């Protein structure tokens, strides 16, 4: 693990007498490599290392009898500062139905997450409704309809010939009328560079003013996540993130990159294909997973 390797590095260094700036730089190279191999974007890594370096070159480390322990403590503190301290709950609407809109790249797990979220709040005693606003992907509506059927949660759909903006608007009217206090809107996957489709999301937002807009991202995503997340955030002002496929073995540096570039909270983790596989996201657990 990084902790063990840092301890080994510093043990060797201490044998050479006083710890120098160069020693700390060498140790930081180890940290840099660890984060990069964990898929943290190289720019995000640079910023992180700079923050750590500023502290590591102070008396905290250089003047300490146990520099490796100070180093590890600083790294953990900086990671926590970046990832966030505690879990952040889903906002509940002050009046009327709470609406959650899911957005993201193709195949990131949005439709599945929609089912999972609706299920989570159903278990908490709410009366959820799912909204099939993906009119593009073949059988997307059918996919959500089946999930709703499995969960015994109603799915609002107007077929695939109606615009997602109109579907979302009509869905919220229906939710209010039928007393659904929790509405999850599934949207089609799209590239952040597709202006027309990003504009469509902005129009859905303007039309229904969702309580939450959650960016759904596959945790195994690489460097480009910074540009993707940044664009989605700039256009929609995301309220949070869902990271999916945490049941795999991707180290998940994407979590750090997303946090660094958007400052938005990661609220949930998808941990499997089943509809119960959704957990509240724990930032500290993710930090441990990234640095290994």
């Amino acid at each position, binding site marked *: 693990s990084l902790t063990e390797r840092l301890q080994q590095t510093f043990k060797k260094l201490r044998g050479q007498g006083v710890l120098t700036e160069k020693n700390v730089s060498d140790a930081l190279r180890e940290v840099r*490599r660890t984060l990069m191999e964990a*898929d943290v974007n190289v720019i995000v890594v640079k910023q992180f290392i700079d923050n750590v370096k500023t502290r590591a070159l102070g008396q905290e480390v250089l003047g300490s009898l146990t520099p490796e322990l100070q180093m590890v403590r600083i790294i953990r503190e900086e990671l926590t500062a970046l990832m966030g301290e505690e879990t952040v709950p889903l906002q509940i609407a002050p009046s009327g139905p709470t609406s959650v809109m899911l957005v993201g790249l*193709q*195949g990131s797990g949005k439709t599945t997450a929609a089912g999972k979220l609706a299920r989570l709040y159903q278990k908490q005693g709410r009366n959820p409704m799912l909204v099939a606003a993906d009119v593009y992907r073949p059988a997307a509506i059918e996919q959500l309809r*089946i999930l709703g059927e499995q969960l015994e949660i109603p799915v609002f759909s107007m077929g695939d010939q109606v615009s997602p903006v109109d579907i979302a608007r009509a869905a919220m009217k229906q939710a209010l009328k039928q007393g659904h206090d929790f509405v999850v809107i599934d949207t089609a996957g799209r590239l952040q560079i597709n202006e027309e489709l990003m504009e469509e999301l902005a129009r859905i937002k303007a039309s229904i003013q969702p309580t939450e807009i959650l960016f759904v991202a596959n945790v*195994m995503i*690489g460097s480009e996540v910074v540009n993707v997340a940044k664009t989605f955030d700039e256009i929609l002002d995301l309220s949070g993130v869902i990271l999916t496929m945490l*049941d795999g073995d991707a*180290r998940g540096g994407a979590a750090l990159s997303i946090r660094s570039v958007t400052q938005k909270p990661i609220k949930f983790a998808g941990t499997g294909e089943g509809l119960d596989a959704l957990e509240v996201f724990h930032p500290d657990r993710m930090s441990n997973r990234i640095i290994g």
Partner: protein
Amino acid sequence: IASNRKIDEELLEELEMILLQADVGVQTTLKLLDRIREVVKERGFDDSSQLEGILQDEILTILDGSESRLHVGPERPYAIMVLGVNGVGKTTTIGKLAARLRQEGHSVLVAAGDTFRAAATDQLDIWCQRAGADLIKGSQGADAAAVVFDSIHAARARKADVLIVDTAGRLHTKKNLMAELEKIGRVMGRELEGAPHEVLLVLDATTGQNAIQQAKQFNEIAHVTGIALTKLDGTAKGGIVIAVREEVGIPVKLIGIGEQIEDLRDFDAAEFVEALFI
């Protein structure tokens, strides 16, 4: 000469950034930059403007190869198995591939080997209708290997040229799901000599270093013969395929450049390498 040395190091750092941002990965990037340094030493280069060209050549050497084309072999039916983790674009790629093979004059049968995910068969059904391919499906929750078994016999009976087998997305960390995949492969080999004749691993171009693990694990289970790299119409460069080729030896054969039926291309290594540096 001393000042040119300095320029080289700065330029090498710039190139390093480009490679890392393109998901080439730390190890592969270091190897590539070391090789450039060697070339520069050997040839006594002092012209920095040529560094990027040397780097592109090095990557091209790794990626190129005559075996990087998807050919329909002489076997009938020619069986293509498509696998990969969740959401990467397997079903969509099959739809595109079936359409292309139809256009080339082949009769195509598709097996709905994803019997698990909601509406997987409905999705594939729509693609097959668009492509002009027949579809063999089982009932929801049916044994995937049984559907594949049926499809091989149907392909023979209907004298289909090509059989394409869709499988459910699965994380390579799930032992039981990988075992199911292995079983599907065995059933194919038992019912049809040499099948699967082509094993396509679908990788999403946005994937980071985990793609290498995916390639290794899937290759262990089902000797992968080629990669279909999808979503290259996005901003991710898919640099992970360089390490996959170097470490696992699997060539990229196809790329996905969109969500429409015509958005499938043969892999062009030169174009791909050029795009890394844009």
